[in-house]
């Protein structure tokens, strides 16, 4: 059991494993999103209060759920990296951050688009929207800190500390914003909570799992790229079929670079 787990510390194994896994995850994502979008956009009934515009929840809700979930993934892998010094955990956190920021951004944009027909305005300082905005700032801070520190090892460790500090703060931020918005707003704001009919909830579940697999797929692809970047000088990378194929194309460029030296040799001769 532990031997099996141990292999996830080895970059070549994870590279191959994620390469084998990615098409399956991507395929599952395509199927789930296909079914979810079809059911959500064509089969689910029109809402008697909001008309067709409610259908944006099929993107908004999964994106909002994933924005929190990805931060948890990032924080947990950061903790694993700091505690067990497992470099691949850091590669996971690094790969996850921009995906999480994209989900958060998507949740904000769709929330704002939804707000226009619902509240009559593009933006309302609603508790959930505001915490999404702050979550986006946390993601951007994480990525900015990573980018600012030149030495990769200290960048990884500093970013990991920040991710963990952020995860301790997220609940406090979330509940204080919730409290703040109930204090400042009349209670007439419509909530998502009112029980949602089964015919609308089923497509939503498909979309949520579809988004989860989308995250998994993009994470695997980004993780593979990240591993190649980190291990660019390792011999196992040079022996990968895809890298060898790429190198086979290179000689054309190489011979150009080499030719001037040949010239000088002939002159010497």
């Amino acid at each position, binding site marked *: 059991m532990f031997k099996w787990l141990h292999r996830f510390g080895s970059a070549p194994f994870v590279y191959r494993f994620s390469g084998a896994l990615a098409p399956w995850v991507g395929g599952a994502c395509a199927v789930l999103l296909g079914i979810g979008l079809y059911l959500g956009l064509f089969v689910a009934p029109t809402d008697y209060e909001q008309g067709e515009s409610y259908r944006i929840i099929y993107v908004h809700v999964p994106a909002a759920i994933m924005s929190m979930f990805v931060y948890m993934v990032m924080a947990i892998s950061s903790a694993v990296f700091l505690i067990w010094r497992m470099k691949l955990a850091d590669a996971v956190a690094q790969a996850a951050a921009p995906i999480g920021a994209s989900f958060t951004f998507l949740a904000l944009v769709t929330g704002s688009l939804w707000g226009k027909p619902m509240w009559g305005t593009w933006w309302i300082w609603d508790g959930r929207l505001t915490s999404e905005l*702050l979550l986006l*700032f*946390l993601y*951007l*801070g994480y990525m*900015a*800190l990573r980018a*600012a*520190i030149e*030495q990769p*090892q*200290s*960048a990884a*460790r*500093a970013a990991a*500390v*920040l991710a*963990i*500090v*952020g995860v*301790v*703060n997220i609940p*406090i*931020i979330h509940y*204080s*914003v919730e*409290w*703040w918005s109930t*204090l400042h707003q009349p209670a007439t704001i419509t909530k998502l909570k009112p029980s949602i009919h089964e015919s609308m909830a089923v497509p939503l579940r498909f979309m949520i799992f579809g988004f989860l697999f989308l995250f998994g797929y993009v994470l695997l692809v980004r993780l593979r790229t990240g591993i190649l970047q980190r291990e660019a000088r390792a011999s196992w990378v040079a022996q990968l079929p895809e890298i060898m194929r790429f190198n086979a194309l290179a000689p054309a460029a190489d011979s150009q670079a080499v030719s001037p030296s040949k010239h000088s040799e002939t002159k010497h001769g």
Partner: protein
Amino acid sequence: MNLDNGTSPVGIALLIKCIVVREWSIAVRNPGQWLNPLLFFVIVVSLFPLGIGPSPATLETIAPGIMWVSALLAVLLSLDALFDADYADGTLEQMVLSGQSMSLIVLAKVLVHWLLSGLPLLVLSPILGLLLNLSLDTMPVLMISLFLGTLTMSLIGAIGAALTVGLNQAGVLLSLLVLPLTVPVLIFGSASVAAAASDISANGPLLILAAVLILALSLAPLATALALKIGVSGSN
């Protein structure tokens, strides 16, 4: 009784005393370091009426928010230099190597930093509150909330300052890292002042501020110490 990893730590009291005396004498010799953020606070607060208009009723409603946002920005500004000088001349490295508890050193440094940045701000706040038409009855709540809030800010901000130690353009990055984390402090701080201004008990928000301060006091020095060790080890 010496449980610390084989080195010989001096007593906690002596350690804190050394740090406090050192930080204090440095600060007294560089008054700009702590006077400038204070000046910044005064200027920002007096800019708001110029931008919004001098109507006393408007000023009264937005005064808690103005005081609090300006205080956060002033503390943030002063945090920029918290570890930079020590990093540049190698003191920080010696502190990490000294075998003393880094969290305690950080805690002592932050407390001195607060005495020089938060406390003067606290003392000045009633005068600025009067400029913004806050009633005299709200001043105690304003000062208590600023006491709890600026101390929390210094503690949280120290994490950001430690993470960005030795970086170019650390100032902008620092605000990006720290400001989202201080949202709860801002919310409950200005809420307590607003409650006091409309004659409602401010105990609730103040108690939450105190709880957040206790959490920050117990956890922030650990994170700051870890971040400083990373920053120092990355420099060579």
